[in-house]
């Protein structure tokens, strides 16, 4: 596709997304749009570290949770303006990531995977203990609660995240990150400071995750602090990335839409627990038969219909 076509398609989609609250007024539909956008940010940010840099972070929830908690406190409990609070969420997640990043990246491969998993688990347990109560939005805010500003804010942050990944994938930085994913020794030998770029990727990834947390803090009528660190936040992001297509820009976007639609559709039309099992089966099928994710399906389809050769699009 030419650049122009790319631009006009993306522009069209953005305009449609801006129109969404004007078209749909049902709270459930708006909620699903909101969640899809939240998942796009959550999974795309995971993709930066996991997909592009090759560092499987199973502690993603830790940074989402840190961002959400920080934002909520700054906003509701310290009374600072919302944009500052959400930014604060992103920063809190990043600072936390940098503190643990130095030791964590001493761990290679599977040790990093399990180390991050355990990190989130520790936070989950600790926060369930020190903040056992749900954090409920004050009644005065609940009375005036509207999904529309929440929707637009999540749209903004999702667009920001996708744009960030687009820029990274086309930049020198992206090349460096991918080289780390492919072979750390060879990356070093080509002049890439792998430790530094891993940390940088970690910082960007966690900053965006923290923003996702911030948005959630703004959205959520109530949450339990420990629940923000539940492994589902990590696993949902991982599932979305792999189902959509790991290491691609479109993957997490398509994956999020698919994920929210499918889960919701199944739970409404296949009740009695079947939906959970069916989702599991579908997920396995995608992993086994579509290693490149849904994005691969699309490129295959395009290849077949156009008959032309495809270029490697990273």
């Amino acid at each position, binding site marked *: 596709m030419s650049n122009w076509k790319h631009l006009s398609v993306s522009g069209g989609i953005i305009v449609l997304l801006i129109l969404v609250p004007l078209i749909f007024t049902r709270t459930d539909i708006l909620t699903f749009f909101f969640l899809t956008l939240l998942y796009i940010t959550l999974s795309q940010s995971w993709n930066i570290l996991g997909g592009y840099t090759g560092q499987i972070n199973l502690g993603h929830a830790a940074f989402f949770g840190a961002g959400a908690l920080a934002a909520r406190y700054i906003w509701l409990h310290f009374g600072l303006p919302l944009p500052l609070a959400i930014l604060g969420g992103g920063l809190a997640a990043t600072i936390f990531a940098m503190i643990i990043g130095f030791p964590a990246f001493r761990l290679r491969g599977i040790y990093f995977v399990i180390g991050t998993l355990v990190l989130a688990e520790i936070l989950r*347990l600790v926060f369930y203990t020190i903040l056992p*109560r749900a954090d*409920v939005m004050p*009644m005065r805010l609940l009375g005036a609660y509207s999904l529309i500003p929440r929707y637009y804010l999540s749209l903004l942050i999702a667009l920001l995240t996708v744009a960030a990944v687009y820029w990274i994938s086309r930049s020198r930085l992206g090349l460096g990150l991918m080289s780390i994913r492919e072979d750390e020794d060879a990356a070093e030998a080509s002049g890439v400071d792998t430790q530094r770029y891993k940390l940088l990727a970690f910082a960007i990834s966690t900053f965006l995750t923290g923003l996702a947390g911030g948005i959630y803090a703004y959205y959520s009528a*109530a949450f*339990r602090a420990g629940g923000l660190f539940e492994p589902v936040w990590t696993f949902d992001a991982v599932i979305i990335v792999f189902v959509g297509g790991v290491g691609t820009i479109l993957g997490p976007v398509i994956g999020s839409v698919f994920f929210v639609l499918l889960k919701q559709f199944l739970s409404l039309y296949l009740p*009695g*627990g079947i939906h959970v099992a069916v989702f599991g089966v579908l997920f396995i099928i995608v992993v086994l038969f579509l290693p490149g994710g849904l994005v691969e399906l699309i490129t295959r389809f395009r290849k077949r219909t156009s008959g032309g050769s495809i270029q490697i699009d990273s």
Partner: protein
Amino acid sequence: GADAQAAPKTIKISSVLSLTGKMSGMGTQIKPSYEIFADQVNAKGGIYVKKYGKKIPVELRVLDDESDGLKTQTQLEVANSWGAVANLGGLGCGSFEMGTPICQKNKMVWVGPGCGGWMPHQLGNEWLYSIFFKTPFFSPLVFDMIQAQPKPWPNKVAIFEINQMDAAEAGLYWKQAAKMKGFKLVYHKKYLAGTKDFSAMITGAKAAGAEILLAYPLPPMGPAIVKQMKELDFSPKVVYWHRAPEGAKFGSGLGELADYVHVPCAWSPDLKLPGNDYVIEQYKKKTGKKEADLIVGTAYTAFQVLAAAIEKAGTLDRKAIRDAVRATDMETVCGRIKFTDQGWAKDRLIVVLQWMGGKTNIVYVNEHGKKYGDKVPVKPLKWQPKWSER
């Protein structure tokens, strides 16, 4: 005036429950209870709504929240958009705390068997009604119960406190009440949800000479604590727990090991209040179980209250229904229900049950229950003997 034209075909009522996931044990007990009530009402043509001048059948839509608070919220949004006039809640403070703010924001009343936690009611949520009593009022019961027995009374108290809101509240009020009533706290440990091994705490409580064990364990932990108490030969005179002994499989699963465990409840199949026979019979028919689970009556009551409120409101307007719920004052299968301004049922009948031989006996009833006389048959309480003497 009656405007048959505008009358909706059904009264849409949603119920967001945990049918899968960690809390599904409770959710799957509540669902048949609600269905029994809906069938009962619909068999008579539905609820009379004055505005339309006729009876309208109830349409109950149960939505699974997968025991996940976020899902509780999105399912309530689905219920909202579907046009539910009210929501019947599930159990557990998690879903309660996470879900009711959504009801507040969407202005839809939530009536549920509820949770013991008092805190959620103190936030000013005007749409939340729980027919259960709250921690400060039922926590002292255990000591009242002991002091209602012939002396000598056991005196040394141990508390195992799980890191959850209602348990923390209960812990606090247990401590206060113990002090006021002359009991001595000898052991108090907090632990994380997910702890599977209790031997350390049991060893500690035993070493401290505890005679009364108070705890708030989740259902899957019940068997573990009992077995480990036996293994470590710890036999306090009173074992008084919330939650785990309410589980459907506590008695049948543990058999004799379950004996002597106490649990406070808002309902028991032994209550002789009007309507209970029907509920129990229908429940057994519907589920094929031999006994009605302890949550059955409480859930049924929630629907009783809601239906009465709709009829009294005479319209399907959500706010009018909410106001009618708030003004509830009625007798139910659980006794009298009357709400405070904070939405919790005050002056509730509470019974303390003791497991014995695979079923529960009422061994104590609070002052609000005493009014019902023989309708609440109380049996004598037995102190737990040493394991070697059982």
